[in-house]
Each structure stands twice: as C-alpha cells, then as structure tokens.
C-alpha cells in the first residue's frame, strides 16, 4: 500500500518540474545555511564554514541528482525527454517525416492485409455447421492428383457411398443476368439439392432447395447470396417469389443465404441455382472430361473427425473399385485408370 502510494506520487512527479526544482534548491541552500551558522558558531571562518558544510553534504549536484532519481521515475523521465526531442526533430524535417510515416503506414497496411487473409483462411472456423467433418472429394489420375469429377461419376459415387453421410456437388460458373438495362455477367454456381443442408447452412430468408428441384423437370429456382440480395434487391423482404433471368431461363427466387456464409471454392457467387440435370443429359455426357464438378462429403456422425482424415483414403481404396468399375465401363475411353481421393 505504501509502495503503491509512493509509485503513484513518483509517476505524478513526471513532466515539467520547475517549481519542484526551485524547492529542492531552496531546501539544500537552507541546509547549507544552517550548517554554516553552526560552523561559524563553533569558531570557523565563513569561507571555511561553507566549505565544510559542502563537504559534509557530499556536494550540491550529487545530492540533487540522487533526490531527482527518487522524485520521479528516471527511466520514464528520460523517455519523455527523448520523445520530445524526437518530435522536435521530426517537425524540423517534414520530408523525412512524411517518408517515414508513409513507409510505416504502408508496412502496417500490408501486415494488416496479410493477417486478415491468414485470419480468414486459417484461423477463423469455416462458416459451416461442422467444418471438421467436411471433406472435398476428387478424382485422381497420375497427371492430376485432385481432379474435379464428372456428373455421372458423382451419381455413382453418391449411390455406392458407404463412408459419408452425404455427398453433394457444386459447379462454380457464371450467369448472364438479364437486367433492366440489358445483360451483365454475374458470379453463380449450380448445386445439388441438398448442398446447403450438407454444409449445415440455413437460409436467412425463405428456404433452400427441395429434393428433386435439381432435376430437369423441376422449375428453375435460385437462392441469393446475402450480398446479391443487398446489392440487387436493396434487402427487400418481399424478394421471395420474384424472378431473375439467368442464362435466358426465368428462375424463381426461393431463399437468401445468411450474411456470414462464404464459399470461396466456388468464388463466392451471387446466384446459387439448382442443378437441374440428370446422368443422361447430353450436356453432361458431353462434358465428362472437363465439367468442374467437385463433390463435398460429410462423414457419418459415428466416425470421429480424426478417424475420417486418417482412414478415409483406405476406405476409399476399398470402396472405389466397384464405383469406378461401373464408371469405367460406361466411359471407358475417358476414365481410364482414374481413382478417387478425399484429402483431409
């Protein structure tokens, strides 16, 4: 308690101290006078008396110095003096100051930007229900260890899957959006019906796709990203049921995704359309080799996440041959010696 009080008093002693300095000088001068008086009374000559008093004190300046060290915190006092000196110097050289501030500013901005990126990609958890259980599924071949798979392969994998609780797919794409002024390009993705449920993302408004809405027979439906809802529909709550024309097809808006939802793998699209295709669709039969399908699987809840990452390649090895055997028989020329992988 006493120490704390003393520390506070010493901290308060920082800063300009002309009054305190004068008081210290007065006190030491008074000390010397009292001593000189005594010495003279003891029979010394005045100059001898003063000399003796000074000697006994141990010098005026050393005494003052020891006193000042105790009065405030010397380290902080010096720091304060250095800071003021630095500020004076900076004011004197505006060119140097400007350059230094600019360089420091750029450095800080760059660090902040890099950290923001690292934070978003590595530190913050992904905005899905159970990110540790999500894996990407890829076809592998010697020259392409992580290849997107074709839609018929996806259907086979989904049907033969015994490892994952769900397997869904997305295709990052762009849409030609018809707007009042004409047409423009907008970021988009096509997804299978249960895609958002597999990620564990519930729409902020409306609903996500129902089972069967990803078949060609179903009427075209679309879910908006939160950003698109704000930008193109001004956050209008009555947006559900309105239509947008994407690639010439009129799509009905059925839902809006939450603001925190991101899906960088598809380039954070504005429009999420239901897939509306089947295995026999000519479009996809023709696109086997290059359709950028990527499947997302969720491991079954009974499998702990650590086991998925460790054991899934083995599981896949044992379960892929029949899958690929089927795929190979149908698309023998293009699917030669393909495997499957689920990197953790």
């Amino acid at each position, binding site marked *: 308690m006493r120490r704390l009080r003393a520390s506070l008093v010493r901290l308060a002693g920082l800063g300009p101290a002309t009054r305190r300095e004068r008081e210290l000088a007065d006190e030491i001068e008074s000390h010397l006078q009292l001593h000189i008086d005594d010495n003279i009374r003891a029979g010394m000559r005045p100059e001898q008396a003063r000399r003796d008093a000074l000697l006994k004190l141990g010098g005026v300046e050393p*005494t003052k110095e020891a006193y000042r060290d105790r009065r405030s915190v010397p380290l902080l006092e010096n720091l304060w003096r250095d800071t003021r000196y630095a500020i004076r110097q900076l004011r004197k050289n505006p060119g140097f100051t400007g350059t230094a501030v600019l360089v420091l500013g750029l450095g800080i901005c760059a660090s902040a930007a890099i950290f923001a990126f690292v934070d978003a990609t590595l530190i913050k958890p992904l905005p899905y229900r159970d990110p540790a259980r999500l894996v990407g599924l890829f076809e592998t071949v010697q020259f392409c260890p992580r290849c997107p798979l074709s839609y018929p392969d996806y259907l086979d994998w989904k049907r033969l899957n015994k490892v994952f609780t769900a397997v869904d797919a997305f295709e990052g794409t762009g849409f030609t959006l018809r707007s009042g002024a004409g047409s423009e390009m907008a970021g988009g993705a096509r997804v299978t019906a249960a895609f958002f449920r597999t990620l564990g993302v519930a729409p902020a408004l409306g609903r996500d796709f129902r089972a069967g809405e990803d078949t060609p027979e179903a009427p075209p439906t679309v879910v908006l990203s939160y950003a698109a809802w704000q930008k193109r529909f001004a956050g209008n709550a009555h947006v559900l049921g309105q239509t947008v024309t994407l690639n010439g097809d009129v799509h009905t808006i059925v839902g809006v995704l939450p603001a925190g939802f991101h899906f960088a793998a598809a380039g954070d699209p504005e429009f999420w359309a239901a897939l509306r295709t089947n295995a026999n669709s000519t479009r996809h039969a023709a696109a086997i080799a290059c359709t950028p399908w990527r499947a997302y699987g969720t491991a079954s809840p009974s499998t702990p996440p650590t086991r998925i990452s460790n054991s899934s390649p083995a599981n896949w090895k044992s379960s892929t041959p029949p899958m690929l055997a089927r795929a190979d028989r149908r698309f023998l020329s293009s699917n030669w010696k393909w495997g499957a992988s689920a990197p953790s």
Partner: protein
Amino acid sequence: MWYVLLVSNMNDKADVWQGTLALMVLKTIETMGPLHGYGIARRIEQTSGNLLSNYGTLYPALLKLEQEGSIASAWGVSENNRKAKFYKLTRQGRKQLEKEARDWQQATAILARFLSPSGDAV
C-alpha cells in the same frame, strides 16, 4: 557477470541501508518533534556515530518517506531565523515506526541469541 553480481549486491546493501535510515529518521522526528533535514542529519550523526557520512543521502530518504505518506513537510523558520523545510510524523508514520521498531528489535534479539558465545540457542 561479475559486474551484475556486484551491482545486485550493492543494491541489496543499499536497500538495507535505506531501510535502517528510514527507521532512524522516523525515530528522530518522533523524539525531537517537527525538524528540518539538517537537524535530522545532525541528530542521526550524533546518535549513530559516523554512519551518515554524507548528509546529502538523507534527502532522498526523506523524499521516499514523504511519498509513502509516513512524514509530511512544510516550510517554516528555524530557531536562528532561517527559512527551512520542517518534517513531521503523520499518523501512518507513527504506526510504521512502531511496527518497524518492533520487527527490528525481534530480529536483533534473535540474532543476538544466535551469536551469543554461550551458544544456548544452538
């Protein structure tokens, strides 16, 4: 390395010295009533022999006690009409003096028993 040891050793000694000096100051002011720095220095010199080789070392000790709230100071006039800063004991200082004097007496009593030639403590 040796330098560091030396310095820390000196600091330890200085701490002990500061502690004893503070106790002497408190005791002096208690005995003599409000007193200026020069008076305190003379009194300590008279009672302790040559312990206070420089009167100047007293002033940081006085400042420390004042910062801790054990003593208070005010300008006044000395018996021979000189302006001087007088120090007096505060209530907290009185308590501190009692406690530290008691601690000191206990410590010296223990050490005295320990170091006595008869060695009855061992």
